[in-house]
């Protein structure tokens, strides 16, 4: 199989099953396929792990329990009281992103989280949920999030726009962080791979770097899922326990 010399080619969207409804192109693409696989894998892991739940867990069950405890710990320590009701949401988000990131690490697979629209959709869901919960729980009082108290009145004119801006930036930072990390990492891998393919004998050096980079990419894949989940927790915390 030829090694790609076009580092960005790996992000091309390909229609697997072209579907057009009205004027809309809702084709089933390779990105959608990877997402489906991620969902299937997560579901399969959980189903297999809990099928024969035992007091002393087997291999699959301990994997699932580790995942569960990791997220439960994160939810507990970051949302605190009343946080457990958001556990399913955070768990779904974390495992989906984790699996989508890790699936991208399989050679010749597709990294669906390297598409900004995918990560932005996830971040938008988080943002809308957090805002909706804030408004449902606290009503009009939720707007006090944007008004720092203990500040002179005339400064509010400056501070409220800043607070508003820093609040509405959240879905963008959340999505761009994940997308940029995955895109940059995989592009870098492809570039060094391209080097290695084109310089013949001296290929050992870029290949060595690539070996290290693969390790780094695994770290980034897990860490970015973690960062996404923990930020979701922090935002939820803010909406639940309005300061």
């Amino acid at each position: 199989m030829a090694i790609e010399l076009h580092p960005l080619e790996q992000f091309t969207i390909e229609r697997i099953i072209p579907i057009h409804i009205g004027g809309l192109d809702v084709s089933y693409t390779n990105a959608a396929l990877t997402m489906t696989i991620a969902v299937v894998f997560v579901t399969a892991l959980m189903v297999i792990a809990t099928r024969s739940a035992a007091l002393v867990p087997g291999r699959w069950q301990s994997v699932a329990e580790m995942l569960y405890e990791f997220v439960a710990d994160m939810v507990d320590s970051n949302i605190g009281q009343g946080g457990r009701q958001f556990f399913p949401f955070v768990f779904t988000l974390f495992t989906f992103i984790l699996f989508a990131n890790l699936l991208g690490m399989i050679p010749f697979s597709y990294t669906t989280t390297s598409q900004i629209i995918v990560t932005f959709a996830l971040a938008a869901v988080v943002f809308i949920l957090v805002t909706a919960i804030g408004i449902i729980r606290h009503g009009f009082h939720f707007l006090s999030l944007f008004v720092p108290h203990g500040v002179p009145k005339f400064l509010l004119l400056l501070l409220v726009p800043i607070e508003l801006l820093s609040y509405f930036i959240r879905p963008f930072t959340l999505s761009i962080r994940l997308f940029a990390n995955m895109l940059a990492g995989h592009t870098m891998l492809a570039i060094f791979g391209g080097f290695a393919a084109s310089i013949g004998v001296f290929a050992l050096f870029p290949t060595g770097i690539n070996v290290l980079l693969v390790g780094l990419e695994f770290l980034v894949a897990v860490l970015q899922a973690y960062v996404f989940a923990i930020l979701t927790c922090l935002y939820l915390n803010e909406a639940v326990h309005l300061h």
Partner: protein
Amino acid sequence: MVALPEMSEREPPDPLAHLGERIDKARADRVRRPSAVVDRSAMQQGLGLGLRIGIELVVAISLATGLGWAIDHWLGTRPWGIIVLFFLGVAAGMLNVYRAVSGISTPVGYRRPDGYGQSEDGAGKQPSQAPWDDDEN
């Protein structure tokens, strides 16, 4: 666990003997165990924090500036929208970075891994009440 062999040398041991001790020991282990977990998660959190603040400033500034440009485009207020929103973006980005780093608007358990282990039940359950209440001045 160490006490087990010498116990078995005597008459058939009462299963409930030393139960209190064993429970205490298990409890102590349980309390001790989180510190190991915290060490690891402190590293994770540090790494996560480092990775997440980098992009915060960049996105805030570029997004706000883009918004300013768009406002100018719609309302014909060039160049004021882009100027004002650029500085607002810088401020908002710095605010986000400052908050991420100093742990303001994050719960107690998040930023202080050293104080996290000791009050195991209370840690994290007590979200910071007032992020803006640091205004003693």
